[in-house]
């Protein structure tokens, strides 16, 4: 297990280096970062001064090496556009994404597994047809459209975006998760408000993973239910519910765990569309805003963090997979 972990961590280093190089290269293609910082109307003289003062007149290799050296020191730099520390910005934006992704994943996992099991227990029935059709719709409807639909349909019932009402003061930031911070500050009403704000974006974001999980659970359950040991359990006269939930489900969930983990990695990478529709200040929107403003320092920092999280989630999924299925060895 330890050797496996070391091997995966060692592989993560070149992966992240590759990502950082790619992002650095992309940031310097198609457009002049100095012009982007100086402003649309800035004179050529001002643009040149900005280029000098930001070190953008140095060779690209030197700029990249200097960037890597800063990252190695844990310094992601200051945003070229806002002058804020990128690390500080990410500390604000990333918890928002984690909060939303976690809420969405909890919804998707609970409902997805339940729907998949129900469908597998009665294959070909109306329930099965209903689950399969709904999951097809779930993976097909664009999140953007679904988000707008939810906003219009539930206008006035649930808040339409943001982490809190605009008129509410945010609780003191201790963890960055507003619900948790509000509870820690003893502000129950604010925590309730934050939860209410989570409902619509989490529902919109949950649809695709929920559909994927439901379909995968159904397929895996069907396969497990037709295996020999399940047939034996039935032959021994165990009730269907016990066979399904106690014997079949545990094994059927092994591939589902992988899917859930990978979905979480994807959700943490920033749900750009959901975050845009619901004005959610997460990392996805941070990346989009930094790309729009050609804020290459912010963009590099954010994408590096996203890539790191994605790699870490993948490693974690592999480890959990090994725990769940004794046949898999990480030796």
């Amino acid at each position, binding site marked *: 297990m330890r050797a496996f972990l070391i091997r995966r961590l060692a592989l993560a280093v070149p992966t992240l280096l590759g990502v950082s190089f790619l992002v650095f290269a992309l940031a310097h293609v198609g457009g002049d970062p100095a012009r982007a910082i100086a*402003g649309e109307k800035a004179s050529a003289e001002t643009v040149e001064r900005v280029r000098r003062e930001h070190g953008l007149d140095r060779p690209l290799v030197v700029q990249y090496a200097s960037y890597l050296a800063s990252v190695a020191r844990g310094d992601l730099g200051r945003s070229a556009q*806002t002058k804020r520390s990128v690390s500080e910005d990410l500390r604000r934006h990333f918890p928002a994404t984690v909060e939303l992704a976690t809420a969405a994943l909890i919804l998707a996992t609970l409902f997805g597994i339940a729907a998949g099991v129900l469908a597998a227990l009665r294959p070909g029935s109306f329930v099965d047809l209903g689950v399969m059709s709904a999951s097809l719709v779930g993976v097909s409807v664009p999140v953007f459209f679904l988000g707008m639909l939810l906003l219009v349909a539930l206008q006035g019932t649930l808040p339409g975006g943001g982490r809190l009402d605009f008129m509410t003061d945010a609780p003191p930031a201790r963890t960055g998760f507003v619900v948790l911070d*509000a509870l820690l500050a003893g502000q129950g009403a604010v925590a309730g408000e934050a939860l209410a704000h989570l409902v619509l974006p989490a529902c919109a974001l949950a649809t695709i993973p929920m559909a994927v999980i439901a379909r995968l659970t159904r397929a895996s359950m069907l396969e497990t239910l037709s295996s020999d040991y399940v047939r034996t359990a039935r032959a021994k006269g165990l009730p269907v519910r016990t066979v399904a939930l106690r014997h079949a489900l545990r094994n059927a969930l092994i591939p589902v765990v992988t899917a859930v983990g990978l979905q979480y990695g994807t959700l943490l990478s920033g749900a750009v569309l959901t975050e845009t529709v619901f004005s959610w200040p997460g990392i996805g929107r941070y990346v989009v805003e930094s790309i729009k403003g050609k804020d290459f320092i912010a963009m590099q920092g954010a994408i590096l963090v996203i890539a790191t999280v994605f790699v870490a989630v993948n490693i974690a999924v592999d480890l959990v997979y090994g725990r769940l299925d004794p046949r898999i060895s990480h030796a």
Partner: protein
Amino acid sequence: MAIVRALVVAFAGVLASGLAGCGKSEPGRNGPAGGYAGEVLVYARGADSKKLDPQAIEDGESVNVVTQIFDTLVAFEAKGTRVEPALATSWTSSADGKTWTFKLRGGVKFHDGTACDAAAVAANFDRYLNPKSALRAGLTETPYDFLYRNISKVEAAGADSVVFTLTEANATFLTNMAMFPACISSPAAIAKWKDAYGQHPVGTGPFKFVSWEPNQKIVLEANAEYWGGAPRSKKIVYAVIAENSVRVQRLRAGEVHIIDGVPPGEMDAIKADASCRLMVEPGMNFSYLAINCTKPPFDRPEARQAIAMAIDKQELLKLAYRGVGQTGPNALPPTIWGYNEMVPDYLYDMAKAKAAIDAAGIAGKEIDLYVMPNPRAYVPDPASVGAVVKQKLEAIGLKPRIVSPVWEGGVYLGELKAGKHDIALVGWITDNGDPDNFLFTLFHTSAIPEQNHAHWSSKEFDALVEHAQKEPDQAKRAELYRKAQEVMRRETPVVPLAYQPNIAATRANVEGYALHPMGLVRLKDAFAKK
């Protein structure tokens, strides 16, 4: 473990105190006598501000917030572009127009309690114009300094007078002093925050900066001691709602009070909603086709005039601008003084345009039509404008190819500067409400290649706008600009397409808010009626 314990304590606290009211802003204390007319006013826009240092910004979202926090020496009047006293109560200029003396309002303090005196004003301009200034730390980008480069010296004359010396007389100096880059910051705050000053702005304006949650909201609170009288709202919240239609949706749901960037397609829905009010006022902008006068065949006026005759502006307004705004013949909007109403627009005449193209022997010529990929305030739907213009150019026998490089990072404008286009869709929003800011800034020979996207040079035109820039008498200046517009009509370096109004929407209970023709947002007197 500590967190779990804290959570348990928190839950107990919640149960004990009841659920209602925690964290909500408290109603006014220490406000003006009689209290504020409104508590919180939520202004929603499509993007966050970048930074709130007036000398370092150019994006509208930053300017919007800065306008509430800071004052300038003089200010644009409520409904127009004339200037009136602000931090300066009076001003005089020397006979040669090179020396301007401003007498400051007494007793004005910055939000940090330091005095806004002549030394502070001089320190601000020293920071802006002198790269070696002691307050310069972190100020690398100064996008608008080109408007202030004619200032050679700024000196305090006693505690309440400031003297500006110019390299040469310039009639736009005073209006430039009313613009946001000339806002006066607290030198003590700049020295304290250094390169983080843009996140901790301190001015003398009607609202004080309180907090900023990036990509969520900026909170300001009323400056009850404001020299111009206390604001009507106790608190302003600038909220970010990126998606246009969602912003409209949340206004209609009553979650915000004022929105800008209203998409034309949503205007009817807002009008029909009794809980909202749509505001449409003529603006000071225009969109136009810049014809590259250095590239044959468009180096000849006849070829350029053929383009002008091929565009049915009324049809274009209806199809590509959703019927919003107006059209006209001039390269500045009718809301700007000096607009020449006697200049006739080109009549839409396809037969004549086609004949001109045939006569020039350029039928079938392939040309690059540049169209920006994303909406701008002066052209909400550039793709539709591009499609209509392309179709018209095809109808007169040309073979246009639409080219849409990205706008960000100066790519689009960079290609226009390099003269890669034959025809390009561009536009302009006024900086200071002066005709000079359109005619000189965009079409004088010295503006090639920066802003003069037509790459057009005319000695006759240059002489007129140069003369107007130095002439102190506004009536005489207006006459010079009228003549300059006649030259442009004759030479046709550009085809003006449309002038767009400023559009906003509010909840029906919002009072004291009016649109300024320059697009300035002033919230001092705005409030949501309780």
